[in-house]
């Protein structure tokens, strides 16, 4: 195909460019949603449930309404009467799971601490918050279900009284004959692996500014969101107004990591109120609201039994997954549990396997998407299993991995869930990372450190991060996206995309791809994202899809324009279009670079000499809107409800070195190496930057972060004092290399890198801490590796006297 020809010599793709938005952001000149000020703007504050589960008996808002400066107080009854339930982001009921009607404010019952109960709009923020204190809500407190395994008991209280149990959905994926393989196995081991609840903590909280123009009949919502177009669809459905009367604009977004995917209660709420009150309104989430209600993840427990041979070959695995997804809402977070099960047994070929998933609801904050999206949990489990097998057989951890990897020539590889892994080279990445970390030389280093009284350990982690998700029936989650490339008469170029950037730099990749395929100078390109009125319809940012789908759409749109430009240039240069090359602002004859015309001259012919000799016969204009549709999505459901909804399978192997203080249980990370394979890399600088962030969030969740609930369902960690994300002090400089196994299904071979780096950190760190004490039977199968947990495990192992 033409692509490979065009890319014989790449000018921009694969090159290091700093972020297009860097200069404005370092100057403090970004425009975040909280920076938007409109004349006459009022402020909204939200009253939230203080109870994990309660019936709302009555709400007396008279005191709040009487406060000077209060414009309106709204409760759940009005939401129920005047608005539709919020549409589901992850079409739960269409795939056989249970759902609920979730309103912008809870009308009758609250199911978690932080669920929205009432809203105040006032002239200013101080008055709005003062008024919240004057709203009197009478609750009948109901029993709260907090532990997922308790919730699974038939006698448990119900989170949703209409459901007959607390199970949102189950899945049972299997291949081969697990029971027989376990019964006949040479060796069998089993265990429990668990991770606590975590959340994403974008430094910028969520926020909205809504304005309604009654003369234009237009509602404008500026929102710190990842998905402007789908949000518009959700708002239209909830508010029952035409979608074309709503404009959603994404300003600069201060981090999202999945958690700014709609639909939230506050979005239709503020839109409704702005329309009703005819006043622009701002709402900026407070940090404690962010912890209580934006969404959590992880909180997953695995029970596994694995069968293996003496040489490390795994013959069977039986896995039970219990995911506590909190209260059911319209948010898509519970889908992470689905993806955990779907991704198993990750990069390994295990002839007999069974994955039994239980998605359990409780009276905790609902899950919402967070970087890793369940793939991290799957990778973590498999790392723990592999290390267990290594421990039991006495084989090296790397040997057991190499023994069981799907091999590079075995793709496409179908897993039992219906997943079809596209490509990869897992052995090469592992071998390379072991070189990077000096695996061979480590025992000597370790022994030397031990003589100095220091406990060093080396860990290996293997991640598989399926990307580019497409869910049948979901408006927001699909494997396509659009882009418009527009060349102005001046030769300046605008690229408009349906994908968005939450602050990770994909706009820079868009400019690189456009410059590459259009042939213009990269400095001529302006990228515009995140406005439903100006950008082509698209699904925004999630599942590491922006460069993979948005970039591919830019590529095919730019290629359309390039072909027109080359036809015109060919007439100007009196050669065949096939003999031309375009790049960096020139169209030249291949092999005769002194025969060229400037990009602008060709553009000039198309716009100003439309009826002249060179542009004759060409359709006027230089603008193309194209959509890229991913090739390897298979939605026709198979047996067991299986389908292949992830087309790209980036992966990576991490190796880290830690120092553990046995007296305090403190874990210090000394080195962290990653060999990452996300297919073709468009911008190595920004790709590595993304990996740094992914690794750090993985490390944070593995060592420092935990959302703790008490037995009443009260969140005990709702500040950044209690929920401690890594600071600069906890981290080393990272050592990263790329391995590029291109996707066979995207034109450039891109696969998505946005979530890479998270998953391998979990297993790598557990593995490293265990490795620091080779003399002990130390097992660290639960996250996070807090000092108390590590210290306790060391004490227990020592007490057990398991000195080998």
């Amino acid at each position, binding site marked *: 195909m033409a692509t490979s020809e065009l890319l014989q010599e790449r000018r921009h793709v694969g090159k290091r460019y*700093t*972020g297009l*938005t*860097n*200069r*404005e*952001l*370092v*100057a*403090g*000149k*970004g*425009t*975040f949603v*909280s*920076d938007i*000020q409109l004349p006459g703007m009022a402020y909204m504050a939200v009253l939230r449930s203080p109870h994990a589960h309660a019936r709302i008996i009555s709400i007396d808002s008279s005191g709040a309404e009487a406060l000077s400066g209060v414009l309106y107080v709204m409760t759940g009854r009005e939401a129920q009467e005047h608005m539709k339930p919020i549409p589901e982001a992850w079409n739960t009921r269409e795939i056989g799971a249970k759902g609920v009607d979730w309103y912008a404010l809870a009308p009758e019952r609250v199911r978690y601490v932080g669920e929205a109960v009432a809203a105040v709009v006032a002239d200013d923020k*101080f008055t709005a918050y003062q008024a919240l204190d004057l709203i009197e809500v009478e609750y009948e407190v109901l029993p709260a279900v907090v532990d997922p395994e308790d919730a699974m008991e038939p006698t448990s209280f119900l989170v949703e009284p209409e459901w007959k149990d607390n199970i949102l959905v189950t899945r049972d994926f299997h291949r081969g004959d697990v029971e027989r393989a376990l019964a006949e196995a040479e060796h069998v081991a089993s265990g429990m692996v668990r991770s606590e609840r975590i959340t*994403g*903590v*974008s*430094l*910028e*909280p969520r926020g909205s500014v809504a304005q309604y123009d009654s003369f234009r009949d237009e509602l404008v919502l500026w929102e710190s969101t990842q998905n402007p177009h789908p949000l518009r669809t959700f708002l239209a459905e909830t508010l029952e107004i035409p979608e074309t009367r709503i404009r959603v604009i994404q300003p*600069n*977004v*201060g*981090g999202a*990591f999945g958690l700014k995917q709609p639909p939230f209660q506050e979005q239709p709420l503020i839109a409704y109120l702005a329309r009703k009150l005819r006043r622009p309104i701002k709402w*900026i989430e*407070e*940090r404690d609201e962010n912890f209580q209600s934006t969404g959590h993840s992880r909180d997953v427990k695995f029970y596994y039994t694995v069968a293996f041979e003496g040489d490390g070959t795994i013959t069977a695995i039986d896995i039970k997954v219990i995911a506590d997804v909190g209260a059911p809402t319209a948010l898509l977070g519970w889908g992470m549990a689905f993806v955990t099960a779907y991704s198993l047994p990750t990069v390994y070929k295990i002839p007999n396997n069974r994955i039994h998933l239980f998605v359990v609801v409780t009276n905790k904050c609902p899950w919402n998407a967070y970087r890793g999206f369940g793939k991290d949990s799957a990778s973590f489990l498999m790392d723990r299993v592999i290390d267990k097998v290594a421990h039991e057989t006495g084989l090296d951890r790397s040997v057991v991995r190499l023994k069981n990897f799907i091999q590079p020539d075995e793709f496409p590889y179908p897993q039992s869930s219906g997943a079809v892994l596209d490509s990869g080279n897992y052995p090469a990445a592992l071998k390379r990372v072991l070189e990077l970390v000096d695996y061979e030389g480590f025992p000597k280093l370790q022994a030397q450190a031990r003589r100095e009284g220091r406990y060093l350990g080396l860990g290996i982690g293997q991640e598989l991060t399926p990307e580019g998700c497409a869910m049948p029936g979901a408006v927001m989650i699909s494997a396509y996206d659009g882009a418009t490339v527009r060349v102005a008469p001046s030769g300046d170029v605008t690229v408009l995309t349906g994908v968005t950037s*939450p*602050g*990770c*730099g994909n706009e820079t990749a868009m400019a690189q791809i456009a410059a590459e395929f259009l042939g213009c100078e990269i400095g001529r390109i302006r990228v515009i994202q995140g406005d439903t009125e100006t950008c082509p319809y698209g699904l925004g940012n999630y599942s590491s899809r922006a460069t993979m789908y948005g970039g591919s759409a830019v590529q095919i749109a730019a290629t359309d324009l390039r072909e027109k430009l080359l036809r015109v240039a060919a007439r100007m240069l009196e050669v065949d279009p096939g003999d031309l090359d375009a790049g960096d602002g020139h169209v030249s004859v291949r092999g005769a670079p002194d025969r060229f015309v400037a990009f602008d001259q060709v553009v000039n012919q198309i716009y100003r000499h439309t009826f002249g000799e060179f542009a004759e016969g060409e359709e006027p204009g230089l603008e193309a809107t194209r959509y890229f549709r991913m090739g390897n999505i298979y939605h026709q459901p198979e047996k067991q409800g299986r389908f292949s909804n992830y087309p790209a399978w980036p992966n990576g192997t991490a190796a880290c070195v830690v120092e553990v203080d046995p007296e305090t249980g403190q874990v210090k990370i000394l080195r962290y190496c990653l060999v990452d394979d996300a297919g073709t890399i468009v911008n190595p*600088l*920004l790709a590595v*930057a*993304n990996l*740094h*962030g992914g*690794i*750090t*969030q993985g490390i944070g969740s593995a060592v420092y972060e935990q959302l703790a609930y008490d037995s009443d369902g009260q969140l005990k960690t709702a*500040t*950044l*004092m209690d929920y401690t*994300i*890594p*600071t*600069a*002090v906890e*981290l080393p*400089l*990272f050592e990263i290399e790329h391995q590029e196994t291109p996707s066979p299904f995207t034109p450039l071979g891109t696969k998505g890198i946005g979530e890479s780096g998270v998953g391998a950190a979990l297993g790598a760190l557990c593995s490293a801490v265990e490795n620091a004490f080779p003399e002990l039977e130390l097992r660290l199968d639960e996250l996070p590796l807090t000092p108390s947990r590590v210290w306790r495990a060391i004490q227990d192992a020592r007490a057990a006297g398991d000195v080998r």
Partner: protein
Amino acid sequence: MRVPIRVTVNGEPRQLEIDTRMILAEMLREELRLTGVHIGCATGNCGACTVMLDGRTVKSCCVLAADVDGQEIKTVEALSSGMDDLHPIQEAFVENQGLQCGFCTPAMILATLALLDENPNPTEEEIRHGIAGNLCRCTGYHFIVKSIQDAARRLAAASPE
């Protein structure tokens, strides 16, 4: 209740009447439209609201606006007048990709300014401790550390000695 205060902000004397409930971060953002000051937590943990108060970095969410009467405040807006006039620290962050979403960045740059003012040639460890009060969730600090090392070099090259 509103009270009058006099402050010098980015070199300019200002007289303001402010709500006594208002924190310094809000005063700078709402009253003076210095929106390079960001509020990430309002509990003094994230550091996104860091500004210089009488030459020292403070978390401006933890200072009441009414309490800064007579004091001198510097925000990131003081460092550059436009895209082509960035401070060497800002240039270092641009070139080393010491940012992603940019929300923590203005504060991180002020923390760097304070650090390098005190210690023009910090070690990696000193840099990490110098910015420990400023959280970043995107970068893992790798390129921030590199940016600060580069900023130190740029400032040293620009200084008269």
